[in-house]
C-alpha cells in the first residue's frame, strides 16, 4: 500500500500552499478594492439546486458527487458543491435579496468526478459575482477585474474570447427547433461539441445564413453582425455594446461564438480567458438563474478563475513581498526559557524565529542566535557574511539586527 491518497485528489506542499495563498491574496485584495465582499458557502448542498434545466448541463450533472445524507430517508440527495455560482445565487436568495446590488466574491473548492483519476476531482476556484444589475458596463467591470487580477499575478499573453448565450439561443429559436431540441443542441454547444452545429447545418442548409453567425471567429467588423432578423437584434446590440466598451478601454478580444462551455445558466455575454491555449477562467451573464431558483427577477453576472491552473503559471518568488528574515535560535538546556522569550520578542519585531530542534539546516536561515545561561548570553551569527556579534540583552540583539537591516537597505 504505497499511496493512500484518494484517487483524483492532491496534496498541496508548503511551496504550493505559498503559491496558493499568494494568488488568493492578490485576488482578495483586488476584489476588496473594487468593492466586492467575500462570502463562503457550505461544501454540502441539496442536489435539486443543480438539476433543473438552466442550471448545469447534463454532462456536468452526470459527474456530481451525490449521496444520501445521514437523515436522507426521504430519498433526496445532497452533493459536494459541483459549481461556484449556483450556491452564491442560493445564498443571495436566502439572505441578501433586500440588497439591490450585491458585489460578492469567494474562494472555494468544487467537486467534479473525473473517470481516470489522473485529473483533479477537487478543484479550486476564485469567483466574483455581480448581482442586481444588467448592463454592458457591469459585464465589462467583471472582465476588467478578472484581467487586472491576472496582470497583478504577473501573467502575460492573456487572450480574451467572447461569445453570447443570448445570441446562440436566439439563433436556435430561428431554426424552428422544438424547445427540447434547442435545449439539447445548446447543451451540446456548451459542452464543447462542435459537431452539434455542423450537423444542424448539414440537415438544414436553408438556415446556413443564420448559422454563419455562429462561425464568427477572430475580431470581425461590426458590419458582419448585421442581420435582417429582428429577433436577433437585442442580443446583437448587447454584444456589440460590450465589445465597443472593451475597445474604448483598450482591451483586446477575440470573438468565438460557438465556444462557451459547461454552464447552462448563461443568458448573455460569455467570456473566457486563455493563456497559450490553456483556459484560466471565464464567466458570463446569467439573468434567468435567480428567478429559476425561486428568487425575484434579478439579473446577475460573474466569473471564476481556476486556481489550480494559475498555481502552475505564477512564480511566487518574483511576486513575494519582502519576506521576514529567519532566525534560528539555539538555546542551551539551562536557557530554554530565555530562548522562548527572545523568540517571542523577535516575532513581535517582525522576524521569523524558530527554536532549534535538530534537523534544521543553518543555510536556510539569515541569522543564527545562541542563547546561554552564562555570559555572553547571546551570540548572533550572520549566515551570509559570516559575522559574529555578542549581546547582553534582548534589546541589544534587536539593535544589532536592525542595524544590519539598515546597512543592507542602504547598500541596496
Amino acid at each position: 500500500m504505497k499511496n493512500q491518497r484518494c484517487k483524483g485528489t492532491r496534496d498541496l506542499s508548503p511551496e504550493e500552499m505559498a503559491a496558493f495563498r499568494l494568488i488568493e491574496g492578490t485576488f482578495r485584495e483586488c476584489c476588496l478594492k473594487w468593492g466586492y465582499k467575500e462570502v463562503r458557502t457550505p461544501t454540502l448542498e441539496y442536489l435539486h439546486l443543480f438539476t433543473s434545466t438552466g442550471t448545469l448541463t447534463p454532462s456536468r450533472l452526470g459527474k456530481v458527487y451525490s449521496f444520501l445524507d445521514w437523515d436522507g430517508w426521504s430519498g433526496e440527495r445532497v452533493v459536494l458543491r459541483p459549481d461556484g455560482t449556483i450556491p452564491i445565487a442560493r445564498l443571495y436568495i436566502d439572505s441578501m435579496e433586500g440588497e439591490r446590488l450585491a458585489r460578492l466574491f469567494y474562494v472555494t473548492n468544487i467537486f467534479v468526478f473525473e473517470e481516470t483519476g489522473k485529473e483533479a476531482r477537487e478543484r479550486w476556484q476564485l469567483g466574483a459575482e455581480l448581482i442586481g444589475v444588467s448592463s454592458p458596463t457591469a459585464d465589462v467591470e467583471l472582465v476588467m477585474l478578472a484581467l487586472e487580477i491576472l496582470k497583478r499575478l504577473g501573467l502575460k499573453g492573456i487572450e480574451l474570447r467572447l461569445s453570447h448565450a443570448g445570441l446562440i439561443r436566439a439563433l436556435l429559436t430561428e431554426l424552428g427547433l422544438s424547445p427540447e431540441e434547442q435545449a439539447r443542441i445548446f447543451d451540446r454547444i456548451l459542452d464543447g461539441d462542435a459537431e452539434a452545429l455542423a450537423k444542424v447545418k448539414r440537415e438544414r442548409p436553408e438556415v446556413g445564413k443564420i448559422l454563419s453567425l455562429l462561425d464568427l471567429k477572430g475580431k470581425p467588423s461590426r458590419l458582419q453582425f448585421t442581420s435582417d432578423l429582428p429577433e436577433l437584434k437585442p442580443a446583437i446590440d448587447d454584444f456589440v455594446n460590450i465589445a465597443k466598451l472593451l475597445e474604448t478601454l483598450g482591451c483586446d478580444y477575440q470573438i468565438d461564438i460557438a465556444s462557451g462551455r459547461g454552464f447552462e445558466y448563461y443568458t448573455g455575454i460569455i467570456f473566457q480567458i486563455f493563456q497559450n491555449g490553456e483556459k484560466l477562467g471565464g464567466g458570463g451573464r446569467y439573468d434567468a438563474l435567480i428567478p429559476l431558483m425561486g428568487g425575484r427577477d434579478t439579473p446577475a453576472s460573474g466569473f471564476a478563475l481556476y486556481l489550480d491552473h494559475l498555481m502552475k503559471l505564477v512564480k511566487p518568488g518574483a511576486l513575494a513581498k519582502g519576506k521576514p528574515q529567519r532566525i534560528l535560535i539555539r538555546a542551551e538546556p539551562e536557557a530554554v526559557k530565555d530562548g522562548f522569550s527572545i523568540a517571542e520578542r523577535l516575532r513581535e519585531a517582525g522576524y521569523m524565529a524558530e527554536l532549534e530542534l535538530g534537523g534544521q539546516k543553518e543555510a536556510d536561515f539569515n541569522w543564527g542566535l545562541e542563547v546561554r545561561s552564562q555570559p555572553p548570553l547571546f551570540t548572533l551569527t550572520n549566515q551570509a557574511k559570516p559575522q559574529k556579534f555578542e549581546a547582553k540583552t534582548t534589546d541589544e540583539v534587536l539593535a544589532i539586527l536592525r542595524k544590519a537591516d539598515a546597512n543592507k537597505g542602504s547598500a541596496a
Partner: protein
Amino acid sequence: MQIKVALPKGRLLNETAARLQEVGWGLDGYQEKTRLYRISSQKFPDLTAKVFHERDIPIQVAIGNYDLGICGSDWIEELMAKYPSSALLNVGNLGYGDAALYAAGSPEGVSTIEEMKTKAEIIRIASEYPNLAESFALKSRLRRVSIFPLWGAAEAYPPENADLALVCGTIEELSGYGLVPVSKVLSVSACLIANKSSWEAKDMGGVVTPLLNKEPVQQAVEPETIRQYPGQRPRYTPSEDVVWFALPDGHQQEHTSRLLAKAGIPVDDYPSATGNRRPTTTISGVAIKVIRPQDMPLQVANGNFDLAITGRDWLMEHLYQFPSSPVQELIDLKLGGVKIVAVVSQELSISDAKGLREFNAKRAVPLRVASEYINTADNYARDNHLGLYRVIPTWGASEAFLPEDADLLIENAQTGRTIARHNLKIIDTLSESTACLIGNTNRTPSPTKQERINSIIKALQTAVKEI
C-alpha cells in the same frame, strides 16, 4: 489457467442453461431448483462456474472475483450508471432474455415527462434500480426527485406511494400491474460480461467464441408510441384519515396472516395466489399494500406508510444508515426469530472478532465483507476496528460467497444448519431479530387516523400476548 464464470439464477436461468448446453459447455447441475452453487465443466477442465442472483453478477465480475458473467443489461447499466469506471466489459449481447426498463405511473396519476419537468414539487421514483432512476431523473431534467431504492415490488408503489416506478418488463406486464409507461429507459437483454483485466490477461476465446457466434434471435421492434392501458387494480382514495399498513411478502406471509386473523384484522387475499399486492380488509380506513420487508423502514420513515410488519434486522439496518430516522419498533410480534451472525470459513482458525482483527492486520488486501445488510456489516467492521475492509452487497444466498468470494459474512441464521452445511462457522452474534410492528414517531396524524392506528396496535398487542 483458471476461468471463473458467474451464472444467473431466476429469470435468465433456463435460457442461459439451454444456450450453454447448445454450445457444449457441459455444465452439470446448472438448472432450476438446484441447490448447487458451484459447478464445473466437462468440456473445459479449467472452467468453474458459480450461480448468483443476477444483480450480484456485474459487481462480482467488476471487482475481479469472476472473469466472465452472464446477466441482463439492466444490471450492468445499474452498476455503470453510478460507477462508470468499473473494470467491466460488455463482451456481447446473447440475443435472449429481452425485456425493457420503463418509467411507469398509474393512469390517473401520471403525466408526461414534459409536465413533470415544470413541477416544483418532489417527484417520487421507486425502483430496484436506484442508480438508473437517478440518471433517468437527471437526464429528464426533473427538478426535484426523491429516489426510493427498493428490494422489490416497485410496481405496487404508484400512484399513492410513488409518482413513478422504474420497472423491468413488457408493456403488457406493466398493464397487468395497472401501470402505464411514460418513458422507456433501457432495452434489456442477456449479455456476456468480462472483467477488463482478465479479458486482457487470459485467453478466453475458446470458451467465449462459440457463445457469441450464435446468431442472435431477431428482436421484436418496440413500438415508438407508448399506448395507454386502463388501470385494473383498486385504488385508494387519498385521505388524511387513511392508515397505510404495509404487510410483508415472501416467507413471512403465513405467520403474519395468522397473527392478523387472531388480532381480528381480517385481510382478504393475503397471501395471494395471484400475486395481488393490494389485499383488502373490512376494517374501515385502513389501506394495505404488500411490499418487501427490507423496504419497509424507509417507507415508514418517509411517511409513505404509517405502520408496517417487518423484521427487526431490517429496522436495525435502516437505523445504521439513518441514525436520526423517526422509525421505531412499536410491538415485538415474537415471530420468525433469527440471529444476525458473523460467519467465516471453517478452515480459518478464528473464533471471535478479536481473532478476525488480528487475521486482517496481517493481510495486505482489504477484508471482503459480504452481506445483505450492508450498513449493519459496515458498522460491525468499524466497531470492531477490522482495519482495511470492503463491504460487498449481496442479494440473497450470501453463504455461497465464502470462502472464495468473501472472507466474512454478516448473515441471518435460524438454526445454523445452512451455515454448517456450507462448511462455515459462526464467530459472533450481533443481534437477535423477530418480526415487529414499526411506526413513525415524528408524525402527528389526524385524530381519526390516530385512533385507527391505536386500535390496530392494541389488537396486535393482545394477539401477541395470547401466543
